[in-house]
C-alpha cells in the first residue's frame, strides 16, 4: 500500500487544511523542534487509534477555535492510498466540534470512515478495522510506527522476534503438521499396543517398558522444568546485571553530559566576555572617536580656510616688516631680500637649529642645492638667522616703544595653524577608521551568532541531561544497591551457567534413555504378532514425524540465516566505512521446537548482545533488522509493503552517519516517512532557514514543517503549522 495523500485538518497545531503529497519512497520531513514534526506523527496515530481518553481540547487546534467566527468547525485526518491492484483506498477519522460559552464539545460522534474504489470505478465501504489493516496490518504495526529511537528496542523483546519468525517463516506450518502427525501417532500406538498385549509375556514386558517410558517422561519433564527455572534465574541475574550496567551507563552518560554542559557554559562565558569587552557602539562613537569617521572633508575645508588666512596674514606682516625695516635702515642686501615679491615665511621657520645646520653644511636641504660660502643663497640663509636672533633679543624700552606699532593686533590665526598642524596627521588616521569600524562590527556580529549557537547547544544539552535524569529514577542509594546486586548477580550467574550445563547433560542422558527405551518398545511391537498393518503404519508415521521435526528445524534455521543476511546487508550500507562488525541472529540450542532467538553483533571475534552496545550502533542494528523484516514480509506474499513512519529515529547519529542512513533509506523501495530536526537552523533573531542547500538534503520528497510567524509558544492559539513542499 502506498500512501498518496495525507490531509490534516485542525489537528493540534495544524490549523486549517494541511496537505502533504508524499512520494513512493523516502519522504523527509524537516523542521525545528516544537514546530509540528511529532504532531504529524501523532495525527497518524490518532487516525489509527482514535481519541480514547484524550480531552477534546488536547486534539482540536486552538488556533482554529480562536479564529473561527462561527464557533464551530471540524477536525479530521485523512490518508489516501493505492494498493498493488490499483484499488484506491481512503481512510478518514473526523468529528465536528462547537464552542459555546467557552465550552468545547463534539458536535458529532467521532467516526472512522473508509472507502475502496476499484479501478473500474466501483466503490465500496470498508469496515473500520479492515481499512486500517490495509495500511497497517496489526502484526506489522509494531514494525512500522516508531516514535523516537527508544521504541526501536522492541526487537529486544524475545517474544517479538519469535512472532516475527512465526509471521514470516514457513516454520509455523511445520508445527501444525507436526501436531497433526503426533495425534495420529498416538492413535496408532494405542492400536499396536493392544495387539502386543495379546501376548502375556509381551504384555508384561510392554507394561514394564511403558512404565519406564512414563517415568522417563516425568523425569524429562522435571528436568525441563528445572531448565526453565534455571533460565528464569539466569534471565533475572542478567536483568540485574544489565540494570546495574545501564545505571552505570546512565551515570556515565550523565557525567559526560554534565561535563559537556560545564564546558559549554565556560565557552559561553568566554564569548560573552569578548562581546562585553567591546564597549557599546554609542560609547565607541565618543571614546574611540568613531564619530569622526567622516570628518576628513570638513577638516580639509578648515585647513584651506586656515591656510588662506595664514597667507594673508603673512603678507600683511611682511609688508609691515618691510616698512619697519626701511624705517630702521637695515642693510641693503637684506632689504633686497625682504623686497622680494613672495610672501616670506615666518622668521622662525625653519627653526634656529635647522638654519644653523644648513649654514654649517653650506647646503639648502629644502631644495637640495648647494649654498657655498659667499653665494647669494648662503647670504640669504645667514641673513635670516641673524634676523631671527635679533628678534629673540630682549628689547630695550626704547625699542619696545618704537615697536609699539604692530602689524596685527591678535594671534588667532597662528592659533588656528597650530590646530592645523596638530590635527593634520590625526585626520589622516581617520581614514582607517572606516575599515576598523566595519571589522569591529563584523567581529561582534559573528561573536553574537556564536553566542546564540552556543546557547541553543546548551539548551539541548540541558534537555538531554533532564531526559537522562528523568529516565532513571535512581537515587545515589539505589545506584549503590544496584552495584552491589550486580556483584551478587554476576556470581550467581556463573553458578547457574554451570547448573545449566549439568542440566543439559541430564537432559541429553534422559533423552538417550527415552530413545533406548523407545527402541525396545518398537522392537517389542515389531516382534509381536498381528496388527501388522498398524505396525507398518506406525513405522511410517514415526518416520513422517522425524522428517517433519527436522525439516522444521531446518526451515527455522534457514529463515534466521536469511534474516541475518538481509539485516547485514542493510547494516553494512548504514555503516559504510566504519566497521562495526556484523549482525548475527542465532537460535539458542536445546529448546526443542521453540528455541530462543538472540541478536548479537560480532566484532573482532567478540560477541555482544545488541543492547550492550553504544546507542547509535544499537539503533542501526535494530533498524537493519527492521528493514530486513519489511523486505521479508513483502517477499512472503503475506503482506503488501506497508509504509513506515519514524519520528526522529536517529538523533543519536552523528551527521555523517545520519546522512548515510538516509541514503540507505532512500534506496529502499519502501515508502518511508522520517522526521528530522537536523536540516533546519534558527538564528539569533528567530529567523529559520535550511541548514543545507536543497540538493544536499536526502530523500526523493522533502517537506518543511514550520509554525507560521509570529507565534507565542506559550499560547496554543497562536500555533499554526504549515507544510511546505521543498
Amino acid at each position: 500500500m502506498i500512501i498518496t495523500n495525507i490531509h490534516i485538518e485542525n489537528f493540534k497545531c495544524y490549523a486549517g487544511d494541511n496537505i502533504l503529497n508524499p512520494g513512493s519512497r523516502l519522504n523527509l520531513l524537516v523542521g525545528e523542534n516544537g514546530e509540528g514534526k511529532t504532531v504529524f506523527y501523532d495525527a497518524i496515530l490518532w487516525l489509527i487509534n482514535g481519541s480514547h481518553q484524550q480531552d477534546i481540547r488536547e486534539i482540536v487546534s486552538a488556533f482554529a477555535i480562536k479564529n473561527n467566527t462561527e464557533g464551530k468547525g471540524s477536525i479530521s485526518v485523512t490518508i489516501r492510498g493505492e494498493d498493488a491492484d490499483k484499488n484506491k483506498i481512503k481512510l478518514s477519522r473526523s468529528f465536528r466540534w462547537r464552542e459555546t460559552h467557552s465550552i468545547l464539545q463534539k458536535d458529532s460522534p467521532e467516526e472512522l470512515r473508509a472507502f475502496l474504489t476499484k479501478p473500474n470505478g466501483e466503490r465500496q465501504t470498508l469496515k473500520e478495522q479492515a481499512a486500517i489493516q490495509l495500511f497497517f496490518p496489526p502484526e506489522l504495526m509494531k514494525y512500522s510506527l516508531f516514535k523516537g529511537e527508544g521504541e526501536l528496542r522492541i526487537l529486544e523483546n524475545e517474544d517479538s522476534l519469535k512472532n516475527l519468525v512465526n509471521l514470516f517463516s514457513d516454520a509455523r506450518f511445520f508445527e501444525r503438521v507436526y501436531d497433526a502427525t503426533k495425534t495420529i501417532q498416538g492413535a496408532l500406538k494405542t492400536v499396536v499396543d493392544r495387539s502386543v498385549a495379546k501376548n502375556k509375556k509381551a504384555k508384561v514386558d510392554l507394561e514394564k517398558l511403558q512404565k519406564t517410558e512414563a517415568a522417563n517422561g516425568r523425569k524429562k519433564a522435571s528436568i525441563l522444568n528445572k531448565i526453565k527455572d534455571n533460565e528464569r534465574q539466569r534471565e533475572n541475574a542478567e536483568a540485574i546485571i544489565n540494570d546495574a550496567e545501564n545505571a552505570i551507563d546512565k551515570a556515565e552518560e550523565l557525567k559526560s553530559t554534565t561535563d559537556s554542559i560545564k564546558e559549554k557554559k565556560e565557552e559561553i562565558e568566554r564569548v560573552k566576555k569578548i562581546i562585553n569587552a567591546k564597549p557599546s557602539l554609542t560609547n565607541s562613537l565618543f571614546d574611540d572617536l568613531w564619530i569622526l569617521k567622516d570628518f576628513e572633508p570638513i577638516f580639509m575645508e578648515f585647513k584651506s580656510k586656515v591656510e588662506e588666512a595664514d597667507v594673508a596674514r603673512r603678507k600683511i606682516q611682511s609688508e609691515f616688516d618691510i616698512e619697519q625695516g626701511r624705517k630702521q635702515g637695515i642693510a641693503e642686501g637684506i632689504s633686497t631680500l625682504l623686497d622680494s615679491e613672495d610672501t616670506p615665511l615666518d622668521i622662525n621657520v625653519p627653526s634656529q637649529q635647522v638654519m644653523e645646520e644648513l649654514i654649517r653644511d653650506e647646503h639648502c636641504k629644502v631644495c637640495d642645492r648647494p649654498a657655498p660660502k659667499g653665494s647669494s643663497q648662503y647670504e640669504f640663509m645667514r641673513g635670516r638667522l641673524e634676523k631671527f636672533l635679533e628678534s629673540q633679543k630682549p628689547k630695550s624700552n626704547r625699542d619696545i616703544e618704537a615697536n609699539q606699532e604692530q602689524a596685527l593686533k591678535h594671534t588667532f590665526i597662528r592659533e588656528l595653524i597650530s590646530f592645523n598642524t596638530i590635527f593634520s596627521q590625526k585626520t589622516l588616521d581617520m581614514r582607517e577608521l572606516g575599515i576598523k569600524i566595519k571589522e569591529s562590527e563584523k567581529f561582534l556580529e559573528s561573536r553574537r551568532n556564536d553566542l546564540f549557537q552556543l546557547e541553543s547547544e546548551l539548551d539541548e544539552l540541558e534537555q538531554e541531561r533532564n531526559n537522562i535524569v528523568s529516565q532513571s529514577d535512581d537515587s545515589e542509594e539505589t545506584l549503590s544497591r544496584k552495584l552491589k546486586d550486580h556483584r551478587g548477580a554476576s556470581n550467581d550467574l556463573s553458578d547457574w551457567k554451570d547448573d545449566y550445563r549439568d542440566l543439559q547433560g541430564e537432559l541429553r542422558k534422559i533423552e538417550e534413555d527415552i530413545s533406548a527405551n523407545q527402541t525396545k518398545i518398537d522392537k517389542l511391537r515389531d516382534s509381536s504378532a498381528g496388527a501388522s498393518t498398524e505396525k507398518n503404519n506406525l513405522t511410517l508415521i514415526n518416520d513422517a514425524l522425524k522428517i517433519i521435526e527436522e525439516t522444521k528445524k531446518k526451515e527455522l534455521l534457514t529463515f534466521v540465516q536469511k534474516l541475518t543476511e538481509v539485516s547485514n546487508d542493510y547494516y553494512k550500507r548504514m555503516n559504510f566505512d566504519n566497521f562495526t562488525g556484523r549482525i548475527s541472529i542465532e537460535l539458542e540450542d536445546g529448546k526443542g521446537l521453540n528455541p530462543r532467538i538472540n541478536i548479537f553483533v560480532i566484532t573482532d571475534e567478540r560477541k555482544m548482545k545488541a543492547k550492550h552496545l553504544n546507542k547509535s550502533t544499537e539503533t542501526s542494528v535494530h533498524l537493519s533488522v527492521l528493514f530486513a523484516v519489511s523486505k521479508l514480509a513483502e517477499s512472503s506474499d503475506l503482506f503488501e509493503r506497508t509504509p513506515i513512519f519514524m519520528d526522529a529515529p536517529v538523533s543519536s547519529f552523528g551527521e555523517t552517519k545520519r546522512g548515510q542512513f538516509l541514503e540507505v533509506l532512500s534506496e529502499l523501495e519502501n515508502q518511508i516517512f522520517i522526521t528530522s530536526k537536523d536540516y533546519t537552523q534558527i538564528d539569533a533573531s528567530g529567523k529559520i532557514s535550511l541548514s543545507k542547500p536543497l540538493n544536499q538534503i536526502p530523500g526523493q520528497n522533502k517537506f518543511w514543517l514550520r509554525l507560521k510567524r509570529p507565534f507565542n509558544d506559550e499560547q496554543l492559539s497562536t500555533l499554526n503549522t504549515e507544510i511546505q513542499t521543498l
Partner: protein
Amino acid sequence: MAEEIFHLWANKVPKYDAELKSLFETHANYGGGDEARAIARGKEFEVAYEMYIYCFFLGLYSKTKRAIPENHSKIDFSMSISTWGKKSGRRGRSDYFEIQSYMFMACVAETQTNWTDLEKGEIQVDDVVKTLMKTLEEFTNGGLLLLKEAYQEKPNSMRHDSSLANLIFQAKEDL
C-alpha cells in the same frame, strides 16, 4: 599669554530649541551617572552633552543646518563646552578635548569669517565667537530634527545597539 579663540569658544554654553527638550529627556540620562545607569533607565546617551555632540555631527555630516526659529525659546544644560567630557575617576584633563577641538574646527570651516580683519582688530573676537556658536547651534538643531524624525518614522530600526552609529554613518550617504 594672549587669549585663545578656542578657549573663548569653549567657555560658551551652547543652547538648543526648548521645543526639543523632550527629545533630550527621552534619550539622554540627566543627573550624571554611568553606562549602567543609563542602560537601566533606557537611555541611549549617558549624558545630555553627548547627545548634543552626536546631533551636531549628525547635522554636520548630513549637511543639515537648521536655524532655531526666532519665536522659539532657547535653553541649555548649564555646562560650557570646555566642561564636556570630564568623567570623574578618569584622567584629569577633559577627556573630550579632541572632540571639542574637532567641533571647533568644524565651526571654523563652516563659518564665513574674515580672519585677517579679526587679526587686525577691525572686528571683535566676541562677535566671531558668536557666529561660530551660531554654526554650532544650527547644525545641532538640524541633527536633533533628523534624530526626532528617525525615532518617529522608523522606530524599529532605532531599537538596536548599533542604530545610532548606523544613523550617523549613513548621514554622508543619504545626501
